[in-house]
């Protein structure tokens, strides 16, 4: 896949300055996303996936702060835009869908109101236009009887439907990049499948780029074009879907896959737990749980090593042990 790069994140660092210390939630990560691509960010809880997504939209709240890095969209560094300009990016060029559809909608406004609000935030159009566009959007994401349900309140919708509404809001201005933060995790298996289908359909239809955040490797294998594996705020491995899943290099990626039952019905867990981010282990952040850890792993942070053009890994054993 060699279409143009649409959004590029470079050396992003987002820290939280808490009373207990600095939480290095996102610690120097870089990746790109191309037009029409689905990029999956995988990682365990607390690995910094959500913070990464929020950083892209500059929605990290205090005590969090983007320390350094660049987020380049259309040659603009988003981190340097004025707050006003940034507002115009949000929802318009980059939209986001959050994990929990139950809390992502304001309970006291109607569905229609909230969708049309997303439209009128960026397009100057009158109320009727906005509302008819909103109805269309609702139909698009598969809400039956969209017209009638326009005036319903969120609590009258099921979880799956709410998530569709949230997606409709995100699509309001046909953004170029859609960030979806675990959009299906809170939903039932059958509904989850519906939502995944919807995403695939949307991508096909609008040529959007989608950053899909998940910790479910099953989902990843189904939809990802490329994959970023995060662990404790850092990228362990990134690359094309086939490369990463078919030829995982980083011990962590391998470990993650081992946690799923193999054909023989065996799972091999990764020992230990994810480290605290305030005083993270020196060197490679994964070394305490790594069975192959070398001395150097305890001292130095491994650089991103290229394995193929599309496949990078941050490990001193890069490729060696593969």
């Amino acid at each position, binding site marked *: 896949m060699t279409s143009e790069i649409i959004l590029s994140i470079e050396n992003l660092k987002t820290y939280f300055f808490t009373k207990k210390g600095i939480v290095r939630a996102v610690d120097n990560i870089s990746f790109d996303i191309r037009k029409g691509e689905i990029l999956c960010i995988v990682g365990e809880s607390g690995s910094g996936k959500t913070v990464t997504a*929020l950083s892209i*939209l500059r*929605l990290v709240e*205090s005590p969090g702060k983007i320390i350094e890095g660049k987020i380049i969209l259309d040659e603009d560094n988003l981190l340097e835009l004025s*707050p006003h300009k940034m*507002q*115009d*990016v*949000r*929802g*318009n060029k980059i*939209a*986001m869908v*959050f994990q*929990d559809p139950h*809390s*992502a*909608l*304001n*309970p*006291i*406004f*109607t569905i229609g109101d909230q969708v049309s*609000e*997303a439209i009128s*935030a*960026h397009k100057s159009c009158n109320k009727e236009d906005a509302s008819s566009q909103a109805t269309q959007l609702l139909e698009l994401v598969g809400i039956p009887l969209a017209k009638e349900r326009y005036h319903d*309140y969120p*609590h*009258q919708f099921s979880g799956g439907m709410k998530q569709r509404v*949230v997606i409709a*809001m*995100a699509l*309001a*201005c046909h953004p170029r990049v859609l960030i979806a933060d675990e959009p299906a995790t809170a939903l039932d298996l059958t509904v989850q499948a519906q939502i995944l289908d919807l995403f695939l359909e949307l991508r096909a239809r609008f040529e959007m780029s989608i950053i899909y955040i998940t910790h479910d490797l099953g989902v990843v294998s189904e939809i990802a074009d490329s994959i970023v594996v995060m662990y404790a705020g850092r990228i362990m491995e990134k690359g094309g879907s086939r490369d990463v899943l078919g030829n995982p290099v980083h011990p962590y990626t391998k470990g993650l896959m081992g946690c799923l039952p193999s054909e023989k019905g065996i799972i091999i867990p990764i020992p230990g737990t994810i480290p605290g981010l305030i005083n993270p282990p020196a060197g490679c952040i994964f070394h305490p749980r790594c069975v192959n850890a070398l001395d150097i792993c305890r001292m130095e942070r491994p650089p991103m090593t290229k394995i193929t053009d599309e496949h990078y890994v941050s490990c001193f054993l890069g490729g060696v042990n593969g």
Partner: protein
Amino acid sequence: MDRSYLAKRLLHALIIAWGVMTASFFLMRIGPHSPADKYLATLGAGHNVSQVTAAIESRYGVDRPLYEQYFNYINSLLHGDWGWSFSTSMPVSDLIKIHWAYSFQLIFLSSILAIILGISLGIFTAARKNTKADHIATFFSFAGISIPNFWLGMMLILIFSVKLGWFKTYYDTGLPMFSLSNLYALILPVITLATGMVAGYGRFVRSSMLENMNKDFVRTARAKGLPESVVLRKHVFRNALLPVVTIIMLDMSGIIFGGAYITEFIFGIPGLGWMSLKAVFSDDYSVVMAVTLIGAFVTLFFNLVADIAYTYLDPRIRYE
């Protein structure tokens, strides 16, 4: 909100009101006091104390068996008769008719002021969370909550009336109710009553705002690209308002029978609070009962209003 729900709420309110009425009725009668007390003090030689006591107690009907008095009281209540106030020699209903306005103007002005200032303060501090302005405002809110209002009233009198002479040291009932001079006369009492309310509402609105600012839907709204002012005004404030409305409603009765009482006492405003205080001190049962009952009804009314307001403001309940 359906009718039967309303009917049930009213029934509930009635039961509570009955409970309050019964409790206060018996509370007052089991006490050692009697309306004849004040006569005892003036009895001279040759008077048969018990005879006179009996005569006076029969004059006011308090010599009957308790249950009989109780049913009589309920009976006359049901007939719209609040009884006779023997400490002021007038029907309780007239007494209330004359005096409620003094309480009302005080409470009304203070509440309006407190709601406006309190909500503004809350929004202001929430929007500027953790800034210097917020810290200062927070400190003053704490001070406002903590300052005993009777003391505040006294200090205002000391400074502005006694030392500076800007105001009278008492509330002048001679002023026409709807006049600027009356408004001027109410300044100190309103400050006394409203300070705690402003501070309390301010804190409450602030924390309610902050709580809502952390909600996912606010983040969603920001992600939509809405300007911060719209996010705050529409998504945060409207949601923060819900508990605020409830609190203000529920607070009302507390204000009326707490702060307003004391404020009336300090400034000599002859409102219901002061009335009932005097009535307590002169064992004037029917006035105390009436004020208690009115208090209960006010509380229940505001509870109901809070519920209805909530239903109106929160679609999750409206469409149940």
